[in-house]
């Protein structure tokens, strides 16, 4: 059962081939046997999962089952879960059990899904390799020497390893799309405001967005439909109808206009990644799409702008972790300043501290205009690049990451790590949706094709990705790791 898509598992549940409880038990067994080597989960909630599965089975017996009823999945440990540890990958919240569920968690529970637990992540979602977790790095199931990507690395690895058919992640600068690419699965970052951020621990509020990681675009369509929509508790969540994202999955792609941003195929792009992506684009041409080059002239300013805006917001968002009302508190503080400084020094890891320091510095007096205001102006130019491009083409395509998954420990330098996100980060600044789909391999490591659309074009992205997956089988490949215990 572990290598099936959500869509296939839903059919099995509907047909009574297995119960949700059996499915849940099977996957909990796999987590138990395999995750010791992957480290993709921070918390496994076996007891709650079995109870939820039984409720789902009971609901099905009384005919009250929705399409996602009884399907297991996992939640990045950034989503607050009532009464269950919500660590955000940080020592700071190692002792924190949230008193409420995130909006996403509520909706998934209401749909009858069964959460198996909370997945590992870079601390406070800051990282591109999952090496910044207080709970240790996650391994890539395709190659245990490689990183799974980040920051939703645990979610991506768990899905790729067949521990769970789908998982929820968050994406602030590529944190869904890049790990999906590194782990050979499908990951969708929706339009900013499409999914509620309520109860999702903030990294950079104007960039953060939740989305699904799964084995197919169709599965992502189902999950997005379940979690998207207005939430009055999040002022930035958009009051806009949620379409049925599965309706258009089978629409033909003839006449689709694809733009290839020149800047996404330049220096630093690994030749293996480039050739996989170019092969994938040829597939679209055979499906009737036309391809042309476009330009996103401000692409190279995206990383500099991001590393002003995101740390600035983060430095403020993370001020609430002060050892007073929840979270880590140092032993025997001498005075108030000592309480703050030691609790935060002990509770936060190195990358988090680095970003808090950058953000604090760039917002401080004398630097604000040169850094923050400038970055916000550049942000507008970057969004305009995309809007101009979408006047000419329907979607943009390119690599999700300049390289396939790199080795654990290979990127010691923060700046070179940041540059890994060159193809994903501008998307968050502009607020547009993006999806990464498996498109081949570089050696034994997967390559992801990224497809971008204009604001609220999720249905189109899912249609494009689904049609690609009907024509290719990259998304059906499973790592040997997943079969070891089978």
């Amino acid at each position, binding site marked *: 059962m572990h290598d099936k898509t959500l869509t296939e598992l839903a059919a099995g549940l509907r047909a009574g081939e297995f119960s949700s409880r059996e499915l849940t038990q099977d996957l909990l067994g796999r987590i138990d046997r395999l995750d010791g080597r992957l480290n993709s989960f921070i918390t496994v909630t076996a007891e709650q999962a079995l109870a939820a599965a039984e409720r789902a089975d009971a609901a099905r017996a009384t005919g009250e089952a929705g399409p996602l009823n009884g399907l297991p999945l996992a939640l990045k440990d950034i989503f607050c879960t009532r009464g269950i540890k919500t660590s955000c990958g940080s020592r700071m919240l190692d002792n924190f059990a949230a008193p409420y569920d995130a909006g996403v968690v509520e909706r998934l529970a209401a749909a009858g899904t069964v959460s198996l637990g909370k997945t590992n992540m870079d601390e406070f979602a800051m990282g591109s390799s999952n090496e910044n977790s207080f709970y240790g790095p996650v391994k890539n199931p395709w190659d245990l020497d490689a990183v799974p990507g980040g920051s939703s690395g645990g979610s991506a690895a768990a899905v790729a390893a067949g521990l769970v058919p789908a998982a929820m992640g968050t994406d602030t600068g590529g944190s869904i799309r890049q790990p999906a690419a590194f782990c050979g699965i499908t990951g969708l970052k929706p339009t900013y405001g499409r999914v509620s951020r*309520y109860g999702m*621990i903030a990294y950079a509020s104007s960039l953060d967005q939740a989305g699904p990681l799964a084995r197919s675009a169709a599965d992502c369509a189902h999950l997005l439909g379940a979690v998207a929509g207005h939430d009055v508790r999040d*002022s930035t969540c958009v009051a806009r109808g949620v379409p049925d994202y599965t309706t258009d999955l089978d629409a033909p792609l003839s006449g689709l206009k694809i733009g290839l941003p020149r800047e996404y195929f330049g220096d630093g792009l690994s030749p293996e990644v480039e050739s996989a992506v170019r092969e994938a684009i040829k597939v679209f041409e055979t499906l009737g799409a036309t391809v042309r080059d476009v330009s996103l002239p401000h692409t190279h300013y995206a990383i500099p702008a991001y590393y002003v805006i995101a740390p600035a917001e983060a430095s*403020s968002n*993370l001020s609430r972790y002060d050892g007073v009302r929840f979270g880590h508190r140092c032993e025997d503080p001498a005075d108030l300043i000592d309480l703050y400084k030691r609790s935060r020094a002990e509770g936060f890891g190195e990358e988090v501290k680095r970003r808090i320091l950058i953000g*604090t510095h760039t*917002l401080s007096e004398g630097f604000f205009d040169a850094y923050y205001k400038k970055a916000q102006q550049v942000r507008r130019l970057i969004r305009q690049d995309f809007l101009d491009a979408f006047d000419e083409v329907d979607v943009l395509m390119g690599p999700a990451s300049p390289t396939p998954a790199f080795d654990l420990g290979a990127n010691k330098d923060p700046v070179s790590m940041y540059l890994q996100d060159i193809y994903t980060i501008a998307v968050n600044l502009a607020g547009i949706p993006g999806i990464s789909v498996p498109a081949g391999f570089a050696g034994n490591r997967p390559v992801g094709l990224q497809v971008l659309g204009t604001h609220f074009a999720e249905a189109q992205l899912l249609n494009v990705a689904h049609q690609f997956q009907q024509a290719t089988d990259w998304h059906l490949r499973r790592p040997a790791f997943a079969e070891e215990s089978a």
Partner: protein
Amino acid sequence: MQWETVIGLEVHVQLATRSKIFSGASTAFGAEPNSQACAVDLGLPGVLPVLNEQAVAMAVQFGLGIHADIPEVSVFDRKNYFYPDLPKGYQTSQMYDPIVGPGEVEINLEDGSTRTVRIHHAHLEEDAGKSLHEDFHGMTGIDLNRAGTPLLEIVSEPDMRSAKEAAAYLKAIHSIVTYLGISDGNMAEGSMRCDVNVSVRPKGQEAFGTRAEIKNVNSFRFVERAIEFEVERQVELIEDGGDVVQETRLYDPDADETRSMRTKEEANDYRYFPCPDLLPVVLDQAYVDHLRDNLPELPADKRARFENEFGLSAYDAGVLSASRAMAEYFERVKDVCGDAKQAANWVQGELSGALNREGLAIADSPVSADQLGELIVRVLDGTINGKAAKQVFQALWHGEGGSEGNSADAIIEAKGLKQVTDTGAIEAMIDQVIEESPGQVAQYRDAEPDKRGKMIGYFVGQVMKASRGTANPQQVNTMLKEKLDALC
């Protein structure tokens, strides 16, 4: 050297919303510690602010009340600093684009004159919690019930030139916000708090001196005293060859002095930036117009109307319009009795005197406006005379008019205070007084005619006494004069 004082005020007004500015927790005062601090107020991970429409409406009403510009777009910013009563490590406020632009407030000075103080802007922000310093094993306890209560911070231009003007300004703000009903204005409970910026400069000098900021002055009286102390301190300092330091000071009402807060805290750097969890607030013109159309009459307008329409003096109009409760009471009395001047005299005289003696607010007056109005009606229609009216008022005040009604009429009836206007009855009493006072009658007769006017007082007093105060004094006077003159 002659010194001039320059004062600017930042007044924080707690808005009288039911729920907090960014959460659905109650704003009620005096609850159990932290029982009204919800996840948003506590800054728990992942929760987000959603703006209270009533806080916005109240801020706009204030803006309209001071004839301010109401910008179409206002933006919330974060003011970042660490303090235990500030749960998120930042205060959500408005730094660059406040909800209320420049406006002006008319203040009433003691001599009955008025002055205009310019308002720089007013912005919305969230209140902080409270630190309780009683001993918790050497620790401080934090109560976050107040955290997230909506505040309107009203920032004046440095337009005031004396402690009295500053106090008058604070009263004017108090009067506007309570008239609008956007705050209870309760300074004792901290619903209105004020930071005072004070500097001095040689008279005639244009440039401002270095100012000190006195934090958290929480009564009209303390504002005056704190400024008086601070001005004296600054003038002495400069005259002794020293310099005023720009700093934050605290006013200690017990010692009646301001003291420097420890300067250990280096210059703050609040790192303001737009709050990414909140979007720009956009007010359309129709919304603003609707609020403008539904604005109650404000103190300055009421005062002008009292003068022009009712013919009250500037002083009386000022006193009676100072608070909405006072003005409403007065207008009701006036409506019931139909005589504005009588109503004004009674409200400012007997009623205010009684309220002051017992330390009561007009809202708690045991004599209602209707009761007082009906009492005045009985004076105006001659049922009772002025002396009896005071007796009736006292009886009303003490609830002697019976459990039902406690009306002036019931008291007049019960106490037999109805004025005697029956000529025959009065004549009988006069005759008796004349008969019993042969000596005084003789003196009257022997006196020069122009001295007799003064002497008649004795006879009037005796007749009134005989009538137990109920005889119509004018009538008694006239009839006595006729009788006595006939004897001459």
